[in-house]
């Protein structure tokens, strides 16, 4: 890997880890969403160092362009209540969770760092590897695989996305004004009927009491 590639790796790794810390620690969800955006851009840079050009573009299009925007829209829709006030009651359980995860992560990272010198390093394309090496990860190479070997999966994913969109609309959609009015009218009618029934019952019991008096 060239010096520029090494520098890009360290830059993107630093920004990626820093923004991930910011995403999970910031109190305001909007700020966390902006940190997530920064994280996604940094990871797109990392994909470039791995010569996954098409995936880097997809990462920016899908994550930065759609997912983060969806998060921001939701936060705006919810408004000031999107921020949860601190609660000391559950602090112990949550600290325990973080400690366990930190322990596991430290173990995994230390293992990876220990075996790291034995793992291969990146080399640029040599002349005898030919033009195919330079194509790796490009739109053409990945698109060919996508539309030949895994075309069924590709079509299934489009069905999945369609179902997800329909499901999202069905779950998030509240009552329309008309439906809310109809529900209110039904509720009022039921309450009126109950009141009438109660009045009739009271009248009957009063009559029974009067009758019993004789």
């Amino acid at each position: 890997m060239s010096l520029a590639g090494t520098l890009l790796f360290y830059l993107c790794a630093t920004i990626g880890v820093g923004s991930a810390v910011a995403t999970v620690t910031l109190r305001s969800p909007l700020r966390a969403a902006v940190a997530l955006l920064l994280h996604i851009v940094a990871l797109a840079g990392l994909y470039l160092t791995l010569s996954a050009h098409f995936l880097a573009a997809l990462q920016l299009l899908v994550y930065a362009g759609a997912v983060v925007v969806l998060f921001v829209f939701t936060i705006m829709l919810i408004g000031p209540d999107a921020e949860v006030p601190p609660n000391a009651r559950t602090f112990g359980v949550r600290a325990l969770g973080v400690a366990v995860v930190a322990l596991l992560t430290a173990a995994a990272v230390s293992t990876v760092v220990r075996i790291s010198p034995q793992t291969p390093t990146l080399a640029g394309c040599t002349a005898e590897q030919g033009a195919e090496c330079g194509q790796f990860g490009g739109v053409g190479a990945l698109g060919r695989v996508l539309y030949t070997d895994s075309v069924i999966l590709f079509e299934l994913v489009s069905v999945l996305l369609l179902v997800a969109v329909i499901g999202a609309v069905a779950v998030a959609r509240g009552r329309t004004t008309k439906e809310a009015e109809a529900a209110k009218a039904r509720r009022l009618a039921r309450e009126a009927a109950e009141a009438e029934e109660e009045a009739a019952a009271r009248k009957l019991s009063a009559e029974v009491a009067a009758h019993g008096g004789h």
Partner: protein
Amino acid sequence: MISLGHYLALATLIFGLGAAGFLSRRNVLIQLMSIELMLNAVNVVLVAFNRFHPENHAGQLFAFFVIAVAAAEAAVGLSIVISLFRLKKTVESDRADLLKH
């Protein structure tokens, strides 16, 4: 020189951060963002392994599908957050306990 181990260590760290965030935060929105962090870390591992074994594009293909599924998951998850907010007027995950009582 940058080796495969560098990418794996970075991805492990990001996955750990996402898991810790998911366990420790009570804001559903930030928990969803933590899930995105974990999915992204897995994507880095897939793409890195594929780069060091460039005979085919299996890893990048997997990362492609993970991105698509993550987008679907975010859409459904956020719509659930909206309907939770409609019901409870809060996005605190501790208050999502309708099935508990």
